[in-house]
């Protein structure tokens, strides 16, 4: 039992649990599971700038999502204290490939050589965090959803639009991994 708290979850636990958020939110309040709309709600609340895209009652339609993502942050906080501080056990071949990119510290959830405040001043840190974050925000808004909204919820509802989006996700991810990373690392 303690192992369940401290060890990472096997895929057959993690996957179904994630999938169950779809019916859970539908049954709770007819909400479609998704996270990226939170970014739109924050923009609408803080800096709508008279743009049509942000002209809507964000308090009425978006509050649920803002509370949800606030919970995600707290969940991360809680889980970080329950886990054992083992490394993410990635495959040897990935470790080797990343070593060739210059990664030597495999502790934690993300490499400190890239994802740390000092690394922001390096090319790989700046591009990964600032440019990467920007592309996430722009892309999810343009596509109207992220992995939870399209890959999980959208596919669960058999939406063709979500299948196209997911194909795009992977195309972009493969391009960045195999062509962009070698340029910036």
């Amino acid at each position, binding site marked *: 039992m303690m192992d369940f708290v401290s060890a990472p*979850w096997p*895929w057959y*636990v993690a*996957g*179904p*649990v*994630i*999938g*169950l*958020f779809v*019916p859970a*939110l*539908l049954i*709770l*309040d007819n909400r*479609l599971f998704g996270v990226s709309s*939170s970014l739109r709600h924050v*923009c609408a609340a803080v800096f709508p*700038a008279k*743009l049509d895209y942000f002209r809507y009652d964000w308090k009425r339609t978006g509050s649920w999502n803002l*509370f949800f*993502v*606030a*919970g*995600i*942050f707290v969940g*991360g906080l809680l889980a*970080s204290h329950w886990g054992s501080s083992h490394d*993410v056990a*990635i495959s040897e071949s990935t470790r080797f*490939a990343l070593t060739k990119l210059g990664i030597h510290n495999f502790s934690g*959830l*993300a490499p400190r050589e890239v*994802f740390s405040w000092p690394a922001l001043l390096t090319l790989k840190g700046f591009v990964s965090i*600032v440019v*990467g*974050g920007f*592309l*996430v*925000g*722009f*892309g999810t808004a*343009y*596509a*109207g959803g*992220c992995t*939870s909204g*399209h*890959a*999980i919820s959208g596919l*669960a509802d058999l939406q*063709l639009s979500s299948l196209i*989006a997911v*194909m*795009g*996700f992977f*195309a972009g991810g493969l391009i*960045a*991994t*195999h062509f962009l990373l070698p340029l910036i690392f």
Partner: protein
Amino acid sequence: MSAELETRPQPAATTEEKAENILLTYFLFGIFFGITLTKSEVLSWFRIQEMFRFQSPRMYEIIASAVVVATASVVVIKRLQLKDVSGEPITIPPKTLGHGVRYAVGGTIFGLGWALTGACPGPLFALVGNGVTVMIVAIVSALAGTWLYGLLRPKLPH
């Protein structure tokens, strides 16, 4: 008169109380999702790299089983015409396909960012909770990206 008062049913929670209760419930669901993201390691840049290099089945197993469970749940909900907790019928509005451009192009742009940050929106928030505080910068940058989409939207093909 007193007999009437005794047999009257308890008043339901006021609309405001219900609204507060449900927001708290979303917050709790969010906590559980943040825990799930962390324990499943899907928020780890290392795992995302593994996925895009096809060097482990783990991420694919997680995504596939999540989609299978979610799809089966939606089928059950629709077949049984289930209603939500407040009694409203559950409906999922279909997304407009249009030319599909927004999904293909937007999706690819997001995919680039997903591989670069090693995170999608949910994981960004969970990572900050896990102590990778520099992802606050990624979130602010993501907000800027969403905002720019709002600005360019009338000119972009959808």
